[in-house]
């Protein structure tokens, strides 16, 4: 695999939480523009791996390099990486004391040093993009889960990230709201955004992903294309897992 175009490099990382060995020597790279979907049973380490990419978790050993910047002890490095990497959480994590617009403008103003007018203009454009321009002045608690998640996506996009991470973005949503969030993600994928998505939405994986990684027990079991995975999975564990989630 060529490292020249890889925007994320992960080299042999291990992570333990107490006695739990959550990541057991993961090495992989992600190319610019790639849409990678991470699947695997709960506790397989996929969320931990995702959180290592923006420094929310620090691996015990091994190296993570994002867009040429190593995630090490330097808080400058960590903040620089975080400014380039957007993340969308399962629980949305919108700031409940701020309006939708303020949620999207806050970091633009204090991190990107944009003026209030500039940041509001960008926020309104992004709200239009995720399909809820009329909710600018609402508070998060006044929105449905699907709307909140779309605001969370807009908030991350406002920082002009080079990479977007999604940590089970639809798992906390009612079924009828999953589609609106997936459509927004689909739109991003089409625009060429580099995305790493932890999700069991196989419809999204089929339609938007160009790579699927199956993890189990803190290790990568299978790393392949969606077509290959759905038609002809190589590993027995992958087959078992797929048969469970596809039914």
């Amino acid at each position, binding site marked *: 695999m060529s490292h020249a175009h890889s925007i994320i490099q992960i080299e042999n990382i291990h992570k333990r939480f107490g006695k739990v060995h959550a990541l057991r020597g993961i090495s992989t790279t992600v190319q610019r523009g790639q849409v990678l979907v991470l699947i695997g049973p709960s506790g397989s380490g996929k969320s931990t791996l995702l959180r290592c990419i923006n420094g929310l978790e620090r691996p015990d050993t091994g190296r993570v390099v994002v867009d040429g910047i190593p995630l090490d002890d330097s808080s400058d490095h960590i903040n620089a990486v*975080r400014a380039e990497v*957007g993340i969308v959480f399962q*629980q949305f994590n919108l700031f409940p004391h701020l309006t939708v617009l303020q949620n999207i403008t*806050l*970091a633009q103003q*204090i991190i990107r040093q944009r003026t209030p007018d500039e940041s509001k203009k960008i926020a309104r454009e992004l709200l239009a993009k995720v399909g809820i321009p009329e909710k600018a002045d609402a508070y998060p*608690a006044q929105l449905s889960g699907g709307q909140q998640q779309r605001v969370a996506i807009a*908030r991350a996009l406002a920082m002009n990230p080079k990479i977007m991470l999604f940590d089970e973005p639809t798992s906390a949503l009612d079924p009828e709201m999953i589609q609106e969030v997936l459509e927004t993600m689909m739109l991003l994928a089409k625009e060429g955004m580099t995305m790493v998505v932890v999700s069991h939405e196989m419809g999204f994986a089929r339609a938007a992903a160009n790579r699927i990684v199956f993890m189990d027990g803190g290790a990568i079991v299978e790393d392949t294309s969606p077509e290959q995975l759905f038609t002809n999975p190589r590993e027995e564990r992958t087959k078992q897992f797929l048969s469970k989630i596809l039914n």
Partner: protein
Amino acid sequence: MSVPDSAKPPPATNRAGRALPMPEWERVPWWIIILILAGIWAVMIIFTSADYTSIITLLSSGIYLTLYVTFFAYALALVVGLLAGLMRVSRNPVLNTLGTLYVEVIRGIPLLVQILYFFYVIAPALADRTPEPFDQLFRSEVNMGIIALAIGYGAYLAETYRAGIEAIPRGQMEAARSLGMSYVQAMRYVILPQAIRIILPPLGNDFVAMLKDSALLSAISVKELTLWTRQRSANTFRPLEHWTIAAFLYLTMTIGLSLFVRYIERKFAIPK
């Protein structure tokens, strides 16, 4: 012998099993109405009696000092408490230990003893080491009373802040940090604004409690309401009238403050 279940009246619930809202007459704040009536009665007595009118006029400078001391001590305690609270939630072992030490030591000593210790031990020591004329700062009862109250209350406020900060879900800090904010920026713009809304009721309680505890400053001869009352009642041999008025004045101030705190809580509530 226990009463058989069938003999107990069933709890008031609707068909979904939820408790029904209280009937209208139970929701009336009777205690406020009784207090208002008693207040009107007290005001009528006070302002129709020449004795009471003169007492209340004489005590009013004590009221001023009570409010002055409480206001500044509370403002200072809010700052001290915030710093100590942030130290308590810090992962830095030095800061954490210092914060915990402060909170545990102060909370274990009676406030009156703290005030006396500060005024008779620490303040003179500081004054002796300070060049004139700045040493006067440490010889003023009012200044030292304000600082002693602030240090004493800061420990309780620190725990209140800590509880508020810890009540904010971890995802809020993660979301803020993921947007590139530093720890301090995340605290300032995301965590504290939410935490302070949560702890407004206990902060308000402490404000009212401090107003009452400001009476302890009479022990270091701060001429606030309690000391004034004591001196006037001793000089005139009329304790009943003086202490009744003092109690009435304290009650008026604390209820006024409580209502103000409730107004603030409503004003800053996060829309749902």
